[in-house]
């Protein structure tokens, strides 16, 4: 039997291929627009994006937004409950003061909000001096008591009489950046190792894959605990901060490496790369013009998804007292105060930093998820 194929079929597919080739230039530029367009359709991702911007703005303007500094405290007001802001249309904002009663058995003070006292508070008030962005000296705070000596605890106070709101705002900076710095380091490690693995293949690939598997198969938290407990006690806060980010990165790079490697492998075989090569584009051109753009969107997605993991890790470590430590304030450090139920039942507001963690992690996860879906505008 002679098998004769309907040739129109092959003809049209070749023509279609040629068309893809000519479209390639436009495709690179259009890629980002498509990703953005697709991303915008993802409602949750947009909500996440707005939240994420908000949180990073808070981190950026922490000194201005927080009524007090991290180390300001008033030991008269340990575990003072949150106050409500009242609006008096004539005189502006105020909160009520406290009256304290000393427990006869434990000698611990308990606070009641005293409706008869009025503490005037205001916007853009003068308060402690600070340097905005570490450069511009200033003393204005978005909100604060008109008389700096008066107690204002909008989210309550901790064991030492620190203002939780202020510390929460300052903690945002550390918590949100430790993820970024850790991810940046993980990214470099991941791109190098994943790229090498995916590019060379063969034995190199096998070895690197084994290393990745090794890191993924050991339980991270005990290892972090071990490593961070081994940090010398005399190290200062900055050294500790840096060491913790390194520890986080050492664990976190594996995901990144897998993504990079996987993309490298699959892109090598993808249609438009092949057609670009058939078009006569040189190898570096193939990589930079065609592979990288479709690659970065995936990378950004997985970066966005790794930051929350790092935030959670830092929070857990600090919560246990093995991560960052007090003068440095992160959400995890704040949660150290919430270790046991007895404390929580007198001061449930100490769990609020946990809420901040959840919101931040959710926001970043939504954004990452939206990006991941949008990174493949041609799929589905």
């Amino acid at each position, binding site marked *: 039997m002679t098998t004769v*194929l309907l040739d129109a079929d092959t003809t049209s597919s070749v023509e279609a291929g040629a068309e893809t080739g000519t479209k390639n230039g436009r495709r690179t530029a259009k890629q980002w627009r498509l990703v953005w367009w697709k991303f915008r359709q993802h409602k949750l991702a947009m909500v996440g994006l707005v939240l994420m911007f908000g949180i990073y703005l808070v981190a950026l303007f922490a000194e201005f937004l927080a009524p007090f500094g991290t180390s300001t405290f008033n030991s008269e007001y340990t575990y003072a409950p949150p106050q409500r802001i009242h609006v008096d249309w004539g005189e502006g904002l105020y909160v009520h003061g406290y009256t304290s009663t000393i427990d006869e058995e434990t000698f611990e003070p308990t606070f009641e909000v005293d409706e008869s006292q009025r503490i005037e508070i205001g916007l853009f008030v003068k308060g402690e001096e600070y340097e905005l962005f570490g450069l511009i000296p200033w003393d204005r705070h978005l909100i604060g008591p008109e008389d700096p000596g008066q107690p204002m605890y909008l989210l309550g106070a901790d064991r030492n009489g620190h203002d939780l709101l202020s510390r929460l705002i300052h903690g945002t900076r550390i918590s949100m950046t430790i993820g970024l710095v850790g991810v940046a380091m993980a990214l470099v490690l991941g791109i190098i190792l994943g790229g090498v693995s995916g590019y060379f293949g063969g034995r190199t690939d096998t070895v690197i894959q084994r290393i990745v598997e090794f890191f993924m198969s050991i339980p991270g938290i005990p290892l972090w605990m071990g490593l961070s407990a081994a940090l010398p006690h005399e190290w200062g806060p900055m050294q500790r901060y840096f060491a913790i980010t390194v520890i986080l990165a050492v664990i976190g790079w594996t995901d990144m490496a897998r993504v990079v490697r996987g993309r490298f492998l699959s892109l090598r075989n993808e249609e438009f790369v092949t057609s670009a090569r058939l078009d006569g584009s040189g190898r570096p051109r193939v990589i930079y013009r065609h592979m990288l753009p479709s690659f970065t969107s995936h990378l950004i997605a997985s970066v966005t998804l790794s930051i929350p993991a790092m935030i959670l890790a830092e929070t857990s470590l600090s919560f246990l007292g093995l991560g960052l430590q007090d003068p440095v304030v992160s959400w995890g450090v704040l949660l150290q105060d919430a270790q046991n139920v007895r404390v929580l039942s007198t001061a449930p507001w100490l769990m609020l930093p946990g809420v901040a963690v959840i919101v931040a992690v959710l926001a970043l996860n939504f954004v990452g998820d939206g990006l991941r879906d949008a990174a493949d505008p041609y799929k589905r």
Partner: protein
Amino acid sequence: MPREDPLLEISDLRTHFFTREGTVRAVDGVSLTVPRGKTVCVVGESGCGKSVTARSVLGLVDEPGRIVSGEIWWRRRGQEPVNLAQLGPRSEEMRRVRGGEISMVFQEPMASLSPMYTIGDQLVEAIRMHLPLTQEQARERATDLLRRAGIPRAEERLDAYSFQLSGGMCQRVMIAIALAADPALLIADEPTTALDVTTQARIIDLLRDLQAETGMSVLFITHDLGVVAEIADEVVVMYLGTVVERGGVDEIFHDPKHPYTNALLGSIPRMGAGAGRRLATIRGNVPHPSDRPAGCPFHPRCDAAIGGVCDVSDPPHIVFGEARSVRCVLHDDVHRSSAAEVRA
């Protein structure tokens, strides 16, 4: 002899996909018939809606797709005809038809078998689904079916997995599964496309033998005109979701009426006489069904297209005989004269 009622009669079937990007009219007014005991071949380029037509028959259209209108009459001997287009895809009756009365063989034999179960498991499942047999009886029948499908050492093969067999063997297994309950119609959707040439020929031979043996009808979908010449009794030529020409196999090959059929035949490489001559190809691309041209869907690629007619009005359906028809204005006397007037 007057033609008996056909076994399967599809009339004016429309199956559309309602995607987010818009409606894809994958099948848009297909009519065809499959007489008893005959082989009907459906030919056309990729994407013209052959598979969707076949899947519509068994209610297997994928998610955003739906049969929008049309009828699919299924006439079993001695029973009331049923309109399969009206049956719910999940209904009990449709499930009885699937595999029991109409079987289907697909393009990718390997992927059509689950790698988690043995050949025997899947074959026995199909048998017991439709026939009241015990496990042992079903197993015996399974062995017999495999043997009939030309699989050596059938007994052993029952316990094999799909990934242990070659593509050709897998397709034989799929054919055996299709024959599990002695169906009246076998729909084969490009069953040989994924196979190498010698295997293709063997599978075609097998299907022809099995048809002769059982007397079932076959609806054979392909884009390989060589296969059509080999096995077809009747041919249906599709273009962009519509049937452009129908006829007996000889009529189609020796007296093609539609310019598209003509072009298809012209693109076959011929041995001998014409060899060495450049292949005639159809100019332009197949448009995507979502942006179908107005008027005759083929007019932008048609050498004989008449401006002001073909790109404006739908082509008429010209019937030459019971199983012979064409959708082209060139064969319509009324239109042709009016077209001549336009030109003049």
